């Protein structure tokens, strides 16, 4: 494995060089919190912030995205026929993405890149993007990545993993894409591979030890779907929920969407917008019947999807990377860690209801 040393003095210049060939995104500090934004000329990613408020999923999967264009002008031969809107083909680079957020793309890929169907918008944007991860040495107390299938130094999806080593960044080169980015930026000072690798292992362990918050997932796969679905825990879990979409919109692994036509005069676009399983409208039939008509149904769907249906369908762990955003931002403090442990520990035969603990 190859390692590169990036002197912090060479960092701004390199980032600037990337801005030509790449659309460069990075965390930008706002008044109250940071978010991933496209970096302006001269602007550097803020690599000191705690995790961003929203996940960077929007770089690959924007909240509103045109899929097709159409004209309703009868004089035109192509009237009423949809033509695809091509996503931005220019390569993108995300600097300073956390390993948990990067891992999320691997989980979301199960949805958009299937043997039967390929979502061209998501896949092209994903493949066009070079992911430069920043190892996470300062996790929040609500982070639980190490028991959610990744960790502060996890390498999935990443093309490069940077470690902040004081006066320089140590970069682990994980893919060809990552190597190309380093070359473009002019960061080419090789670091001693053995020493770097062992330094990284050491730091990884130290970082992982800082993560105290845990979920238990070992029994999820063997729990019977129907018994979890019928379990008497859901009323208590769902009571506080106000059915807003915060948890789903801040989540790096939530992918649900809606399709809407927006017409302006005689032309328009078929748009894809994020949607949320928390909204009653999400599943409402034309007849007025709603298979998930109550708050309890919807809260259960969200947790069952992440912690059971996904687990069973793809055998790739839970659909959660432990970033803790929903835990921190839920206006009524519904906590996925608590729910995960509850259903992992649920014992239908004993009907021990951990809800009231």
């Amino acid at each position, binding site marked *: 494995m190859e390692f590169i040393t990036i002197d912090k003095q060479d960092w701004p210049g390199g980032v600037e060089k990337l801005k030509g060939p790449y659309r460069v995104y990075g965390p930008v500090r706002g008044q109250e919190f940071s978010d991933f934004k496209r970096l302006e000329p001269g602007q550097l990613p803020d690599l000191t912030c705690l995790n961003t408020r929203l996940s960077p999923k929007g770089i690959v999967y924007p909240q509103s995205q045109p*899929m*097709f264009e*159409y004209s*309703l002008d009868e004089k035109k031969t192509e*009237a*009423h*026929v*949809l033509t*695809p809107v091509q996503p931005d083909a220019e390569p993108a680079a995300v600097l300073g993405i956390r390993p948990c957020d990067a891992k999320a793309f691997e989980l979301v890929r199960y*949805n*958009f890149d*299937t043997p*039967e*169907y*390929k*979502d*061209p918008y998501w*896949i*092209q944007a994903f493949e066009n993007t070079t992911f430069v991860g920043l190892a996470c040495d300062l996790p929040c107390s609500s982070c639980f990545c190490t028991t959610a299938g990744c960790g502060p130094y996890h390498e999935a999806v990443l093309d490069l993993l940077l470690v902040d080593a004081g006066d320089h960044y140590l970069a682990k080169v994980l893919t060809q894409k990552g190597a190309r980015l380093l070359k473009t930026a002019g960061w080419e000072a090789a670091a001693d591979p053995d020493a770097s690798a062992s330094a990284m292992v050491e730091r990884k362990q130290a970082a992982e030890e800082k993560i105290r918050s845990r979920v238990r997932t070992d029994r999820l796969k063997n729990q019977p*779907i*129907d018994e979890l*679905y019928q379990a008497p825990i859901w009323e208590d879990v769902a009571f506080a929920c106000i059915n807003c979409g915060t948890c789903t919109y801040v989540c790096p692994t939530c*992918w*649900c*969407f*809606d*399709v*809407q*036509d927006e*017409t302006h005069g005689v032309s*328009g676009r*078929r748009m894809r917008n994020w*949607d949320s*399983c928390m909204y009653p409208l*999400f*599943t*409402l*039939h*034309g*007849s007025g*019947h709603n*298979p*998930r008509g109550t708050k309890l*149904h919807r809260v259960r*769907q969200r947790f*069952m*999807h992440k912690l*059971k*249906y*996904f687990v*069973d*369908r793809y055998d790739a762990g839970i659909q959660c990377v432990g970033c803790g955003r929903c835990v921190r931002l839920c206006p009524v403090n519904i906590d996925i860690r608590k729910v995960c442990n509850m259903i992992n520990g649920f014992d239908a035969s004993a009907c021990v209801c951990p809800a009231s603990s």
Partner: protein
Amino acid sequence: MQNPYLPYPVHIDDIIVETEDKNLKTFKFVFSNPADEARFAYRPGQFAELSVAGKGEIPIGIASSPTEKGFLMFTVNKVGLVSAHMHAMKVGDVMGVRGPLGNGFPWERMAGKNVVIIGGGFAFTTLRSSIVHMLDPANRKRFKDIHVIYGARTPGMLLYKSEIQAWEARDDIHVHITVDAAAGPDWKYNVGFVPAITEQKAPPGDAGTYAIVCGPPIMIKFTQPVLDKLGYSPGNIIMSLENRMKCGIGMCGRCNIGKEFVCKDGPVFTLEQLNQTPREF
């Protein structure tokens, strides 16, 4: 990369008002690019997204049969934005069809078996497709006895009336039409709800007999115990579900029942499968 969200352009070739309340119309579409017809190779029980630019898409079961060449047929109930708009469209108008989507009925498993088709109201669309498919001279010998039990509220609410009457007259299919209440002196078929007629007319269930049930929830609810009584095992009862859908390809996240997507893993499930999953439909 093929774009699974892109509809094939079609134009409306014919519009037939099916029911006396005029809420159901059958649309016959012809592909604007003839080559698209071969790409749209489907089997009975599948559905498609009908796309109207500026309005959106609706998932509708395919009512035509793959044995009918040169067109596609869909029967559309007027309920929402897209369907209401379609009801105002006219022959020659251009729109889109995206698909075929979903799994369709399990034709391999039903080969060599008796097939009982039980339908109610306007859920008869993919059943029509299935019947036409099975009655095609090239296919008929692949199935044993075929029974059809089809009911609607009134004679005027039955779909595909002239075709059903033609099937009635044939000797290679047993058709039992029914309406909910007494329908006047001209009505020469059954009177009564679908579950009751099923009890009277359906053959007993065994390993060699499959029942396909499509209809409103209330009909399904009361037909199920009848089939139980007749000896149909859950694995031999086949149902087609409807849930709100957008993408039709298992990506948008709304139509799932447990870990199954109705749009992609369904819409056709056996009762045995449904018994193992949350019934969110």
